[in-house]
C-alpha cells in the first residue's frame, strides 16, 4: 500500500506541496537525503514482503493449471496372449480411474476386444451409438445385436443394420509391456460421426 505512495516521494516530486513530505523539525542539511533513503528502504521492504507472500500464493493458485490434476488414465484390458487366438469379440470390464484434485472416481465399463479386417486388435465401446444400451455379442448369430432396437453390428463393430447412425465406437488402445490398454471414452449418441464427450 505504501509502495506506490513512496514512489511519489522520490526527489522528482519534491515540488509537491504536501507537508508530510517535508521534514517538519529537521534542520540538518542532510535531513532530506536521510528521508529519501528511508523512503527507499520502506519501498524495498514492502516489495520484499509482497514478493515473499505473492510467489507462493501464485504458485499455490496455479497448481491445477500447471500440474495435471485431472486426467484420463489408461486402463488395463488384459494380457496380450489372451487375445492372440481371438476369433470372436470377447467382453472385458475395464476399471477407469479418474483423478479429480483430491478425489478419484472408479467406475467399471464393459468393452469388447476384437480384430479389425487386417487382424489388428481393436477395443470397442459396448455402448450402442443409437440410444446407449449395452450391446451384447451373440455367439449363435455371430453378430452384435442391441436388445433395445435391434441395431446389428459385425465383429469389428461395422454397422450392418437397424436404427444406429454409425458403427460401434472404437476406443484408443495401445500395447505396453505385453498388456493391452485402453483409454475409455464416452461418445455422443445419435450422431453420424464419433464425438467424444469429456
Amino acid at each position, binding site marked *: 500500500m*505504501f509502495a506506490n*505512495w513512496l514512489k*511519489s516521494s522520490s526527489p*522528482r*516530486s519534491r*515540488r*509537491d506541496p*504536501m*507537508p*508530510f513530505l517535508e521534514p*517538519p*523539525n529537521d534542520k540538518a542539511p542532510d535531513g532530506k537525503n536521510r*528521508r529519501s533513503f*528511508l*523512503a527507499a*528502504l*520502506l519501498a524495498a*521492504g*514492502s516489495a*520484499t*514482503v509482497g514478493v*515473499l*507472500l505473492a*510467489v*507462493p*500464493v501464485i*504458485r*499455490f*493458485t*496455479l*497448481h491445477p493449471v*500447471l*500440474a495435471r490434476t485431472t486426467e484420463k488414465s489408461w486402463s488395463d484390458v488384459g494380457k496380450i496372449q489372451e487375445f492372440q487366438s481371438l476369433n470372436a469379440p470377447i467382453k472385458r*470390464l475395464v*476399471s477407469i480411474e479418474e*483423478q*479429480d*484434485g*483430491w*478425489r*478419484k*472416481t*472408479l*467406475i*467399471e*465399463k*464393459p468393452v469388447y476386444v476384437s480384430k479389425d479386417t487386417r487382424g489388428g486388435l481393436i477395443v470397442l465401446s459396448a455402448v450402442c451409438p443409437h*440410444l*446407449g*444400451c*449395452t*450391446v*451384447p455379442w451373440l455367439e449363435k448369430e455371430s453378430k452384435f445385436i442391441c*436388445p*433395445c432396437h435391434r441395431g446389428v453390428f459385425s465383429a469389428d463393430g461395422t454397422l450392418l443394420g437397424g436404427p444406429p447412425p454409425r458403427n460401434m465406437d472404437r476406443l484408443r488402445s495401445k500395447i505396453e509391456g505385453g498388456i493391452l490398454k485402453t483409454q475409455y471414452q464416452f461418445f455422443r449418441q445419435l450422431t453420424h460421426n464419433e464425438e467424444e464427450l469429456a
Partner: protein
Amino acid sequence: MNPPPEERHSRFRAWLDSRTGLDSLLRHALDEPIPGGAKIAYVFGSGLLFLFVSQIVTGVFLAMYYVPSADHAHTTVEYITKEVTSGSFLRGLHAYGSSAIIIVLLLHITQTFLYGSYKGRRELVWLAGCVLLMLMLGMAFTGYLLPWDQKAYFATTVGTNILSELPWIGNALKRLLRGGTEMGTLTLSRFFVLHVFLIPAFIFAFVAIHVYFFRKSGAAGPIGEDPLEPKLQSEPFYPKQLVMDMGFTILIIVALGIIAYFWPTELGPKADPSDTQFLPRPEWYYIPVFQYLKYWHGSTSLIGILLIPGIVGLLLVTVPFFDRSLERRPWKRPVSVGLFAVILLALGGLGLLSHREDLRNPGLAAQLKAQRDATKEFMQAKFEPELSGGSLLAENAALANPGAAKGKEIFEGQSCNACHGDNGVGTAAAPKLIGVGEKYTSTQIEVLLQKPNEQMTAGGMPPVNLKDDEMKALIDYLRSLK
C-alpha cells in the same frame, strides 16, 4: 503540449485527492506524533496488524482447496500439504503465523503493561485490546480443529469438554458449540464458520476501534512521559517509526518463511474417534491452561475453572480503571507490575510442569512418542486420492457375499446387464436396479422375475426361469445393489 511527467503526476494526485481525500488521510496516518520519538519498543502493534493480514491472505488461499466436512477435511489438508505446489509452505505460514501472533501479542501486552501505556484516559484502548486478545485466542482454538487429524480432534474434544464443567449452562453451551452431544461434522462446520467468518469480522471491527481509540488518545511515549499532557518533543510516525515497524515486519515474515520452509507443519493421521489410547495435547500456547485444568476436579472445579480465572481475567481487563495514578515507571508500580509478572510466571511454570510430567511418566512418554511416530509415518506416505462413492462400491459390496457374487455372474450370463446396465445402473432400455432390495422383499422380487407385470413386459422384460439356488443367488445380488 504535454506537461512534464512530474506535473502530470501531481495533477493526478490533486485530482484523486479532491475526490477521495487520500492525501489528508495519509497525512493523518503518517504524521501521527510520537512523544519522545520513534522506538523499537513500539513496533509490536504494527507487527500484529501485519501478521493478521498475512493470516487472512494465506487463509483465503488455503480455503481454495479446503473442504469443511468430516469426510473430506483431512484429505483436502493432506492434498494441500503433500500435493499442491507451495501448499506445505503456505499452510506452514498460516499455522506458524498463529503461534507468531500469540508471541507478538504477549510482547505487545507486556510492553503496554511495563510502559503503563494504558494510563491517562486510555481505558477503552485497553478494553478493545482485551477483546482482540480473546478473539485471537478464539481463532487459534477454532483453527486447530480444521485439519481434522488425531491431535486436532482430541484436543478439541478436551477443549469443548471443559465447557460442561460450567454450572447450569455448561452442557447446553457445549452442545451448542459442538452442534450436538458428540464431536462430528457439524462441529467442524461450526468451527469453520467461526474461524473464517464470524471471529474475523469481529477482529476487523475491534482492530478499527482499537486503532481509532489509540489515535484519539495519542501515543503515550516513554515511561517518563506524562500520559495526559505530553512534554517531550514529538516526532512523526513517518519515516523513522514506520521504518522500524517495517523492519520488524520483515523480520517476522522472514523468520516465518524460514521455519515454514525448513520445518514444514505436520499433519497427523485422520481423526479416529474410536481411538481410546490417544493423548490429546493442545498447541503450546494452550498447554499452561491445559495443565492448570488438570488440578481441578469434582467439588472444587468451580473455584478452579470459573472463580480464579474469572478474577484474574477481570483484574487484567479492568486494570486501567483502578490503576489510575499517572506514574508509569514500572519500579514505582509494584502491585500491578507484580501481578502481571506473577501471571506470566505462573503460565510459564504450568507449561514447564506439563512438559516435565510428559517426560517423567514413562507411559505418557511412550504414548506421545508413538503418536509422533504415527505422524511422521503419515507424512511420509504418498497422498492417495479419496475414492468417491459410485457404482464400483456397490459392486464391492456385492462381492462380499459369495451368493451375491454368483448372482452377479448369472446377471451378466443372462445378459440382464445389456438392458439394466452393469451393476444394475440402468440404461435407456431399462430402469436401474440399484435399491430394489429396499423396495421389494426377496419373495416379491422372485415373483416379478418369474412373471413380470404388464409394464415390465411392455418394456421388453422376459420371464426369468432359473433353478432355485441360482434364483436365490440372483436375488441376493439384486438386493445387494445399493
